[in-house]
């Protein structure tokens, strides 16, 4: 069994006098030890809400959470993260589960020095006090690449640069060597050169400690470099799930296909027009009425309106290796029409390589 297996997670926001909003409507995926799993999608697809639901950070009122999220604890038993009580969840957060947020400035307490915020975790979960805790905190900061850690411990969040704040946050998250790290857009607020540093750091953490990483991002470039498995979300459902190589070589869902076609790439020739997806995220229909992506889809047929399509194996792929939620998936066509021919050839050799591995 995997470290975390999420099964049909649903999150509904309810409010008096307003229609219920299904932010997440049936998301399933699993994360193994030492694996990096990506949740990718644009704003409003439910990726952040998924992570908050897993960490038990959604407010209790006005939110309905359904489904299961089984987490294998250190002892070997498994618990459902969604039904755990507050104190049980607190014991789990830190030593077993940890999260890194998008905006490091708003997730650090501005009126408390960094040192106190790091030692707090050590005191709660490891019972460390005084100098031992301070030394360990300094060591943690040093490990994530913050120079002069003893001085930094006395400083406040505003005195640190953006990259350093994110490092401090990572240091806090890995303080108790968690087995699952959830990173919600950890590099979105950072510059590219700093982003490269942080991504490299996360990669090393996964490689050295066998930490599982759930990476939530909108940036397909980050996913291509970091994730083993990728889940593409649209309007609260996984629309495509595959290993990164098959996914990037031949995205089968029209949304994933369109997304890759609409990114300007550093290595594409200048002047090649982008192929954007029509409309915006507001142009969706409810999953109950059909495929939510249908109004924006270029490959739309009447069959798309006969209820939500199931997440099924892609024709021609290994079972469970490449799942797609589409009645009319894009086959044998690489994103970006210009170099379709040779990219198609690459695609095939890649998938066979992946399958043989």
């Amino acid at each position, binding site marked *: 069994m995997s470290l975390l297996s999420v099964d049909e997670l649903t999150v509904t926001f309810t409010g008096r006098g307003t229609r219920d909003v299904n932010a997440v409507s049936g998301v399933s995926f699993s994360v193994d030890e030492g694996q990096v799993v990506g949740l990718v999608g644009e704003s409003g697809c439910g990726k952040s809400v998924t992570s908050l639901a897993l960490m038990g950070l959604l407010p209790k009122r006005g939110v309905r959470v359904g489904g299961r999220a089984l987490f294998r604890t250190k002892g070997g038993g498994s618990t459902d993260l969604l039904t755990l009580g507050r104190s049980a969840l607190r014991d789990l957060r830190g030593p077993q589960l940890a999260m890194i947020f998008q905006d490091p400035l708003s997730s650090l307490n501005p009126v408390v020095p960094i040192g106190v915020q790091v030692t707090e975790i050590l005191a709660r979960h490891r019972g460390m006090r005084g100098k031992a805790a301070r030394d360990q905190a300094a060591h943690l900061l040093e490990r994530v690449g913050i120079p002069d850690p003893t001085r930094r411990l006395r400083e406040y969040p505003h005195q640190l640069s953006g990259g350093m704040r994110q490092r401090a946050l990572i240091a806090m998250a890995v303080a108790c060597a968690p087995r699952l790290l959830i990173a919600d857009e950890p590099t979105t607020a950072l510059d*590219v050169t700093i982003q490269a540093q942080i991504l490299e750091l996360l990669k090393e953490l996964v490689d050295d400690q066998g930490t599982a990483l759930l990476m939530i991002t909108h940036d397909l470039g980050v996913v291509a470099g970091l994730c083993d498995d990728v889940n593409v979300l649209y309007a609260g459902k996984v629309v495509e799930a595959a290993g990164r190589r098959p996914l990037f070589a031949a995205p089968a869902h029209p949304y994933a296909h369109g997304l890759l076609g609409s990114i300007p790439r550093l290595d594409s020739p200048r002047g090649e027009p982008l192929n954007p997806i029509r409309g915006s995220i507001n142009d969706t229909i409810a999953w109950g009425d059909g495929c939510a992506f249908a109004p924006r889809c270029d490959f739309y047929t009447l069959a798309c309106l006969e209820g939500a399509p199931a997440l099924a194996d892609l024709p021609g792929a290994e079972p469970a290796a490449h799942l797609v939620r589409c009645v009319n998936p894009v086959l044998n066509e690489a994103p970006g029409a210009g170099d379709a021919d040779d990219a198609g050839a690459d695609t095939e050799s890649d998938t066979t390589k992946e399958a043989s591995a």
Partner: protein
Amino acid sequence: MSLLELDDVKVHFPVKRGVLFDRTVGHVYAVDGVSLSVTAGQTYGLVGESGCGKTTLGRAILRLNDITAGHVVFDGTDLAALPDEEMRRARRRLQMVFQDPLGSLNPRQNIESILAEGMAAHGIGADREERRTRILEILERVGLPATALSRYPHEFSGGQRQRIGIARALVLEPDLIICDEPVSALDVSIQAQVLNLLEELQDSLGLTYVVIAHDLAVVRHISDVIGVMYLGQLVEEAPSDVLYAEPRHPYTRALMSAVPVPDPDLEDSRERILLRGDLPSPANPPTGCRFHTRCPWRQAERCDTERPALTDIGGGHRVACHFAAEIADGTLEPVRELAPKLLGAETPAAEVPAEVPADAAAQREKGERGEKESTTP
């Protein structure tokens, strides 16, 4: 023919301190001597990380910031020396599209009022009817429905708001549009729509753009010439394809290697240059070459003391590095590892004595990981 010519433009912001008398205690050297020229009908891309001065430079062209020194020559007139009222009138030909589409639109004005305001200020269109006809024409051009006229900014999505921002610039029939991070607030699928729109408008109206962005891929996609900025200075400038094929400045190379590309094979194989540390403060920039504190090829003496000039190396490629040629032909080795390991070694102090099973589990995981790695092709 160059439409816009910047000559040694400097924008310094004074840092003031004191209770009764504001003493100037220093300066933030936001833009420190930038010279470039923008050809009519082309797109000039300015790229750099936050704090490099690219936005300040863009605003300085329109004199939204005071220019400390230098000349901004637009179509033969030096904007830096223009009296305020004449500058205001000159702004009809120079427009700006801002980064945050919601923040730059007045929430209490409807779209017609937002678009007509600039026209009235510059005396375009005799009356309301004439302006409305013109506005409708432009709205159609940018892909907004005519019903948008009486609606308010909050009723639109991010992409549509950016279209309104573009329409606001277009109604004045400008020659040059400065786009400050035009797509960074938008989702990728919407980003592509706006980028395509900007290109279409350029083709049909013959516009000249200065596009300011932090995203190198976006800038490369839309620009003819790219200038890379670092700490208030231009470190490299080249035609877009040349810059991508042969980046010469160490900073450009690091920047390019840091941009994630949605292609797993390329991501795994390409050269990676990790820069150490953060951007130094522009209030106290390093001496000599400003990049020397983070440069993997830094040489003793010369890099620390002598400021490299932006020199032409042929083909419209200009680079500000003493050792660009040596780095390019490989005769100069980097003085430190290009992609050093970041994670410090786990020392015994970090181990948890009380939780032996956890360590055992970690060991086991490590083993599994190793096996997995050996089987992957």
